[in-house]
């Protein structure tokens, strides 16, 4: 599995130019008072997206039928993709958070509290995105996976819309629910979100393993 991980790191390194360019643009945007929390989230999302890029590299030109003759199990492959996604996104998140922190120390014009809260929420959202998207990518592959993900997103939006309509019937508005969430102690809120992410990852991982173990190459 170590070899697989190194393969993905090398693929990432080979595509680093593109990422560095984005990082530089984001760095510049920080100096024109762009929301740093959003920038950290954006760069973290880009890093996470690279996990899916490695999967499309693996799949390209029947790559899987060679890859799965190498000395690891299909479960190892799934494990590596989850590990890679989490590690790379958290690392990038920390690096950019430290960069913002450094800027705040130098320029003394940033309030790190809300920035940290926004960035943390983005990190959780990106992990949830990964947990939902990975089984879809494993099931449908890179090309069809994109369409399937759009489908899943549409269903999720429809579900939220439907819930808000049902809520209205019982005299509860979505705005009120969001306002109520705002009143929750942030530490509890982050704790709850982190738990949701962990549960989502556990479910997502077991689905992905089942998908890959059944897959034919």
């Amino acid at each position, binding site marked *: 599995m170590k*070899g697989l991980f190194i393969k993905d790191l090398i*693929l990432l390194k080979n595509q680093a130019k593109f990422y560095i360019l984005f990082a530089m643009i984001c760095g510049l945007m920080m100096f024109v008072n762009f929301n740093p929390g959003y920038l950290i989230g954006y760069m973290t999302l880009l890093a996470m997206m690279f996990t899916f890029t490695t999967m499309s590299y693996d799949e390209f*030109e029947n*790559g899987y*039928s*060679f890859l799965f*003759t190498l000395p690891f*199990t299909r479960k190892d492959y799934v494990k590596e993709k989850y590990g890679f996604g989490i590690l790379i996104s958290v690392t990038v998140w920390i690096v950019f958070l430290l960069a913002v922190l450094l800027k705040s120390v130098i320029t003394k014009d940033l309030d790190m509290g809300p920035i940290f809260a926004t960035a943390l929420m983005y990190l959780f959202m990106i992990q949830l995105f990964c947990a939902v998207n990975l089984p879809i990518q494993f099931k449908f592959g890179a090309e069809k996976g994109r369409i399937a993900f759009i489908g899943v997103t549409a269903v999720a939006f429809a579900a939220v819309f439907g819930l808000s309509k049902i809520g209205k019937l019982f005299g509860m508005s979505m705005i009120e629910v969001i306002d109520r969430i705002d009143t929750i102690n942030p530490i509890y809120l982050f704790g709850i979100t982190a738990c949701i992410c962990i549960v989502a990852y556990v479910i997502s991982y077991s689905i992905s393993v089942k998908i890959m173990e059944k897959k034919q190459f």
Partner: protein
Amino acid sequence: MMLKLENVQKRYDGYSLDCSLELRTGYITGLVGLNGAGKTTIFKSALGLISVDGGGIQIFNKELKDLTAEDREEIGVVHYDSGFSGYLTISNLTVILKNLYKKFDKEGFEQKCKEGNLPFNKMIKNFSTGMKAKLKLIVAMSHHAKILILDEPTAGLDVIARDELLDYIRSYMQEGDRSILISSHISKDLETLCDDVYLIDQGRIILHEETDVLLDRYGLLKTTNEQYKELDHQHIIRRYKEAYGYRCLTDHKDFYVHKYPDLVMEKGTIDEVLTLMIRGERL
């Protein structure tokens, strides 16, 4: 026994595979058949890339499902249409393979790549067909695997490149306790390389023979209609109607050479045997 397929069955829409095959220690075993005969399905079944509908597959005397990652280190694979990502370089592969295989021979790998004039820092996707094929084989051989499973390793190569690759394969067998299962649509390659060959057609093994036996004992007899009528048919396996009479396949070439010295007898090459076995009429 390195690899054993026992009544392995796989059914697709309009196609079914049902075959048994053995790869013995120290043997190079060839798999020959027309396009779509089932060669790749056999390879994929043996490697666990597809599930089978029946039968058993054993590698190193272990059931395929019980094969561990360590066992897989003892298997080197070449697929004609698949390999490492084209966005990697040979320098990248050196690092990856070192971390994938405990027995990865870095010096040997780099040496072979240098001998094959393969550039270390060029992305694989920019390699020529010959360079890619060479690299796939060098990778498969780089970790001292006990079994090499080579699906059309010479596909798309010119004569010189093919010879070079066949030499690599031969040299790999110099160390004992190794076996190779290889398929090629160029059967001449297999005649000089393999210890035994399996002929496959429409998902069934139609012939399994030691290569020497096939080349020595099998022959093609060309007869007119009259000659055919007078011919002793006891060792004729297949016949095929031609404009001049019959083309017959025998596995007792000497019998007919001695008994009918005037008849035209051609050497049984794998191609000829395969053609007659498929297109010929069974007696």
